[in-house]
């Protein structure tokens, strides 16, 4: 019999008191809260790297090969103050934004074509498969022949570097929009461009944003590399040209200052612009944790 196997115990029912328990919620300590801030953690890492740099270069003591961190900073400061770096940086960013905007626009058009027709889909898949692995800089010689020395060539290679990653990510984002969400959109009478704008784009936004970030990074790298190759047109040049020029004059601290600006602009875009877009969209919506 089962009764012999089971241990018999009396039942009980308790009254739950409302005040007799200890801490349910307790604020974190100040230190925990500071360390929870990603900016603080990343700042600490930067500080550590700068220290390693400074110590190593002081030991090496060869400003021609590897200038000190402090020298780089002062070169950076001087070039900001005399306006050279700002002008060069602005020149680069201007070209970059032109190429980036054109790339995004083309990617949008191509993807819209790809999701509405099957042939467009095949077209996009074939093109991305062909061109995505091709480094944009490899097209530069050709671009120079077609568009000459100048912004035209730069914008051309920039478009190439932005278009494919953005189109690829946007497209895969659209493809992975859940069936339920699509049915919801159609249920309320959405079709055509309204359906794309109100359902597909927001639902695929995490992927689109990833594509935009990758596209930005590719574009920035391509631009600096392209400027290093020819750089100057009509008397002014960008950051790549600044680096190249100073290398020729053996102003190595200035070379480092140029690289430093490239990094700072990259960090700024990643950690402020894209980060804020992310916080206001996909994170707020709980689509990305």
């Amino acid at each position, binding site marked *: 019999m089962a009764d012999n196997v089971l241990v018999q115990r009396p039942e009980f029912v308790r009254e739950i008191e409302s005040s007799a328990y200890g801490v349910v919620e307790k604020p974190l300590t100040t230190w925990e809260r500071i360390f929870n801030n990603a900016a603080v953690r990343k700042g600490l890492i930067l500080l550590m790297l700068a220290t390693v740099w400074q110590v190593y270069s002081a030991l090496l003591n060869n400003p021609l090969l590897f200038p000190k961190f402090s020298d780089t900073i002062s070169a950076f400061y001087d070039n900001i103050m005399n306006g050279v770096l700002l002008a060069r940086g602005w020149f680069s960013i201007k070209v970059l934004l032109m190429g980036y905007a054109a790339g995004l626009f083309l990617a949008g058009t191509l993807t819209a074509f790809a999701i509405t027709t099957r042939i467009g889909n095949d077209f996009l898949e074939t093109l991305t498969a062909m061109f995505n692995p091709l480094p944009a800089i490899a097209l530069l010689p050709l671009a120079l022949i077609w568009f000459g020395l100048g912004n035209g060539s730069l914008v051309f290679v920039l478009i190439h570097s932005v278009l494919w990653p953005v189109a690829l990510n946007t497209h895969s984002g659209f493809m992975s929009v859940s069936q339920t969400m699509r*049915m919801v959109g159609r249920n309320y009478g959405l079709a055509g461009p309204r359906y794309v704008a*109100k359902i597909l784009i927001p639902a695929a936004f995490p992927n689109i944003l990833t594509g935009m970030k990758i596209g930005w990074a590719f574009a920035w790298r391509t631009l600096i590399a392209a400027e290093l190759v020819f750089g100057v047109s009509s008397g002014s040049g960008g950051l790549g040209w600044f680096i190249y020029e100073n290398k020729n004059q053996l102003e190595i601290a200035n070379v480092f200052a140029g690289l430093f600006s490239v990094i700072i602009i990259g960090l700024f875009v990643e950690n402020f612009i894209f980060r804020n877009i992310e916080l206001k969209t996909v994170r707020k*919506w709980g689509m990305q944790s």
Partner: protein
Amino acid sequence: MSAVAAAGPLLEVKGVTLQYKTKEHLVTATYRVDFQVFKSDRFVILGPSGCGKSTLLKAVGGYMQPTEGSMSLNGAAIKKPGSDRVFVFQEFDQLLPWKTVKENVMFALTSSRRLAGKAAEDKAMQYIEKVKLTKFADNFPHMLSGGMKQRVAIARGMAMEPDVLLMDEPFAALDALTRRKMQEELLQLWDDTHFTVLFVTHSIPEAVLIGNRILLLSPHPGRVKAELNSDGKDNLSADGKQLSDRIHDMLFADQIEEEVTPHG
């Protein structure tokens, strides 16, 4: 009763065969299914998995066309999805994560061009209040529990004031306690507005509780086995069996009796 019959059925499904293609097969989901839904019905389609009940609901929603037979709503043939038949799905991602609770409900009203601006907002809030979520109107869906998300979806569907609300196992992804509560709330909402609902489920107790009319489908492919009345109380019928037992017997009559090992 006669007045309702005189008004005619709201939704009429006649001899509907539904087929869809997978990568390897052509699957017949339902075979010559007939049923009629009248105004204010709580019409439940009940059957085991594989009886094509969800496919049937999709067809009523206008997402697929029958290979045979006809479906009409208010006398007009169903050709494509429309906001006169609003879906409530089982999946939580039917709510748009980039919109708050209020915006989700308003989205339905504005997208379908029913209402705009303040009027849409008022209507949305009215139905959000009905499902007791006024406090959460400005929250995003990811902050809500599963039951609350389904309540938003129901509010969104009801705010459209559709001819028929199509519910595809709306409570199947919820835990048992929440599910129980949601079923009661749905009945309270029905007492309030007497909306017409077509409800798909595979749970016999849920069908008995929710439906006033239960359509039983047999599996592979779905064919109509019976149509029963229910008053929600699982009463004894003339043959001395409870409604749920009758349904159980009918659904599993074709299967080989599984061996039962008694405890003790």
